[in-house]
């Protein structure tokens, strides 16, 4: 087990820059998730760590070893591929055995390790099958078993759950989490699914356009998004982002006015409020009022889309709430959980707090 350090790593494909000078340190035993939309450079980053892609510039260290010029086979990493990358002409057992076989482990020792790995992922009775005779979830387990059969320095997982159906994904997610806790191996996990990122990660690196937009614990990423991209990307439904003006303790947009805020900034800004930080309210304490555009019952709550002038915002209402499209309702924002971003740069401005806090 080892820490992974990337310093100034860049990757260019022709004139396209996939990674702009990336610095990232993953602590020993840490579970780091690279999260971002497709084409953001997360898979490229992982492939550079694996040695499948050469960086155009920068250094990669695994533990105290510089691995820039080390071939993938000697980097002592294990990888789980999106399409599992199983060897179709080999049985499950041979697939799991392959990393041991190429390393020249004696047969007796191999058998014991294969059994252990297969048991950990509950593959015992399937060892004689060929990959094509397995379901998606079982194939995923074979890929995992092949990764854990030797104890590598680093696990690399490239969207390992994206080919599974929703229900299985939840089960496998828990299994991966459990496995990593148990083995304590440094793990880099690539995904575009924020739920996977939030549930699995010790730390999340949110990436976009070849840059890390924010690096932090899932809580930090969710509670204090560093910029508009992170704010809009994390959360489902996403954070409401309302462009307007700030100045002298208030935020105003065409159909919204929030008073009693304290922040130094003034000028054009974007206000962010998560749906669950807004409540449907009536009477004097209402911050904004609009007409109901749509109501969606998710089971645990109602998602209410409200038209505020031209802006659409989504608020989360209790499941017992009954409203209809076209009604006029009032919304109240939780002042302690507002986010403010610079309109130009998209960067987070200081956390606005209510005056009495």
């Amino acid at each position: 087990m080892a820490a992974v350090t990337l310093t100034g790593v860049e990757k260019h494909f022709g004139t396209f820059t996939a990674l702009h000078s990336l610095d990232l340190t993953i602590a020993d035993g840490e579970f780091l998730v690279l999260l971002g939309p497709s084409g953001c450079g997360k898979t490229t980053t992982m492939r550079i760590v694996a040695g499948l892609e050469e960086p155009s510039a920068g250094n990669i260290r695994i533990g105290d070893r510089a691995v820039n010029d080390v071939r993938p086979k000697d980097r002592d990493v294990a990888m789980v591929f999106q399409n599992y990358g199983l060897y179709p002409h080999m049985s499950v057992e041979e697939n799991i055995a392959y990393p041991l076989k190429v390393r020249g482990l004696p047969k007796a020792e191999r058998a014991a390790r294969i059994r252990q790995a297969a048991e950990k992922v509950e593959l015992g009775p399937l060892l004689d099958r060929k990959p094509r005779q397995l379901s998606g979830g079982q194939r995923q387990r074979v890929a995992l078993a092949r990764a854990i059969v030797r104890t590598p320095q680093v696990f690399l997982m490239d969207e390992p759950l994206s080919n599974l159906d929703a229900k299985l994904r939840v089960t496998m997610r828990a299994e991966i989490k459990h496995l990593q806790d148990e083995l304590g191996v440094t793990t880099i996990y690539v995904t575009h699914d924020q739920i996977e990122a939030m549930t699995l990660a010790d730390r999340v690196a949110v990436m976009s356009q070849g840059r890390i937009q924010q690096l932090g614990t899932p809580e930090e990423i969710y509670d204090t998004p560093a910029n508009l991209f992170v704010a809009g990307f994390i959360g489902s439904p996403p954070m409401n982002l309302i462009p307007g003006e700030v100045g002298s303790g208030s935020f105003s947009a065409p159909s919204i006015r929030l008073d009693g805020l304290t922040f130094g900034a003034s000028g054009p800004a974007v206000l962010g409020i998560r749906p669950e930080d807004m409540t449907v309210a009536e009477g004097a304490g209402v911050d904004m009022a609009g007409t109901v555009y749509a109501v969606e019952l998710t089971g645990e709550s109602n998602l209410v889309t409200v038209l505020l002038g031209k802006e659409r915002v989504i608020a989360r209402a209790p499941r017992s709430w009954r409203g209809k499209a076209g009604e006029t309702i009032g919304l109240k924002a939780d002042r302690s959980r507002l986010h403010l971003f610079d309109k130009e740069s998209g960067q987070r401005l200081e956390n606005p707090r209510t005056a009495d806090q």
Partner: protein
Amino acid sequence: MSESTRRMIGKWARGIAIALVVLVFFGPILWIMATAFKEPRDVYALKVFFTPTLQNIYASFDTPFFVGERTWNSIVVTMGTLVLSLPIATAAAYAFSRFRFPGGSVWSLGVLATQFIPPVIVIIPLFVAFRHANLLDTKLALVIANMSFVVPYAIWMIKGFIDSIPLDMEEAAQIDGASRLRAIWDVVVPMALPGIATAAIFCFVVSWNEFFYALVLSRQDATTLQVGLMSARTERGDAWEIMAAMGLIIILPMLVLSRFVQKYFAKGLISGSVR
């Protein structure tokens, strides 16, 4: 015309058409097989019933036809071509499939384009080169000449298969601890095996049947069975029964091959480069 007569006519027409095709395809083969076992005086007689004799077969193995040695030459040349061509073609196919070259597909297409040049043109420089290298009338010369047209086609056949193998598996093998070469051997080759087998059959067939290069490049020692056929045109006229006996030996491996691998060959062609 009633429905049933129309159906009858259709049935007969189909039958006749099939019979014609069968006659055209199998007639010559049957003629060769029959003639090989006929007495010389029966050769021109279209007799269906005759007393078979092995005399022609014996004669063909004797002076001046040397079918034994020439069969051996053919086997060595064909096998030599096979053994050298397949690894070379597989390696080249892998390279064309996986690596980017400056100029893109110019190179892989170029390899194929060499085949548009008629052999009759290529043979002249080949002949001169082999004479300088003292390789005329050697089996090695024939192997090299055969490779010049077997390898390009084999590359394309195998490339089609390698193109369809996802990169994931090779990369997985490399991360699992295999060198690139080992990954190719352990993962790519087994997966491309149907394509390699197809190429092998193709390679075998064309090398075995090759006549022109062997005719020009061999004289005595390296003469193959196919060229040896010409020796049956003697000053006493064409010895058809000897030719037939040689012909029988030439088509023998093809008959065996078509019996056992024809299905596999068709499958390989369909699922590989054509797809």
